[in-house]
């Protein structure tokens, strides 16, 4: 697995994300989502997004991840090769599990956002003792 050569991933542009009025590109970040017994984990790849540029919302089971890119080129440069373009990131998911909204954790490191959405502990099965008369 570790010997695998990496392939480039084409950035997908967001289709029909409302009606944008700014002439900006919006991309769908690539994600890994995996679930453990305690939490739902989301890894989202958003190169160029700083810690302050991330917005996460959870509303009515819809999780929205937004990343705003700070411009990383300064003026007066002539472009010789362009393989990626700066653009903002947007992706929405439906979260089926009941999430403890208070305990959501997000960390941003090297352009990858890690989200931990802890599940609410399910109601424990209760035994009801039948009382004799």
């Amino acid at each position, binding site marked *: *697995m*570790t*010997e*695998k*050569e*990496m*392939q*480039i*991933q*084409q*950035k997908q542009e967001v289709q029909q994300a409302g009606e944008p009025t700014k002439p900006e590109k919006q991309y769908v970040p*690539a*994600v*890994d*989502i*995996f*679930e*453990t017994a305690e939490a739902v*984990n989301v*890894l989202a*790849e*958003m*190169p*160029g*997004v*700083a810690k302050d540029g991330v917005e996460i919302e959870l509303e009515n089971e819809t999780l929205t991840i937004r990343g705003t890119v*700070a411009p*990383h*080129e300064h003026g*007066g*440069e*002539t*472009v*010789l*090769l*362009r*393989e*990626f*373009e700066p653009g903002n990131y947007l992706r929405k998911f439906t979260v089926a599990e009941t999430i403890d909204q208070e305990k959501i954790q997000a960390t*941003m*490191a*090297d*352009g*990858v956002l890690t989200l931990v959405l802890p599940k609410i502990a399910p109601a424990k099965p209760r035994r009801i003792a039948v009382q004799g008369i």
Partner: protein
Amino acid sequence: MAIVRFADQKLFRNPWADFERMRRELDALFQGSGQDAGGRGAVFPALNVSEDSGNIYVRAEIPGVPAGEVEISIEGDTLTIRGERKTCTVEEKYSYHRRELECGRFSRAITLPAKVQVDRIGAQAANGIVTISLPKAEAAKPRQIKVNVG
């Protein structure tokens, strides 16, 4: 339609000339598409290369790799970016809903468009984008030449 001078016209026309022209135009059409939004190569990482009068800038999109683990080397005119991404730890007990992130080793070499001062190359990483600035060698810098009135 190109303008053809009368004197340039050949006596015997190539009967396939129109088809050849059509084929050339179609080829150009396919090559032209995707040129703007990313004439992406298939090699990771994606690069943006730009220059100003004094420097060449190479920017690479390498999310998920700590700054210290990106190897950058230069040999003559060839700049090589190498590294490994280890973000995906495969755990059998996890149930995956999406697996889209790639991981593994990567290596990319590019030929620089001008000679650079090898000992003054700088690189810095911010939010998954590595910026390498390469000061151009004195000989490669643009120079204004004054025209003297004689």
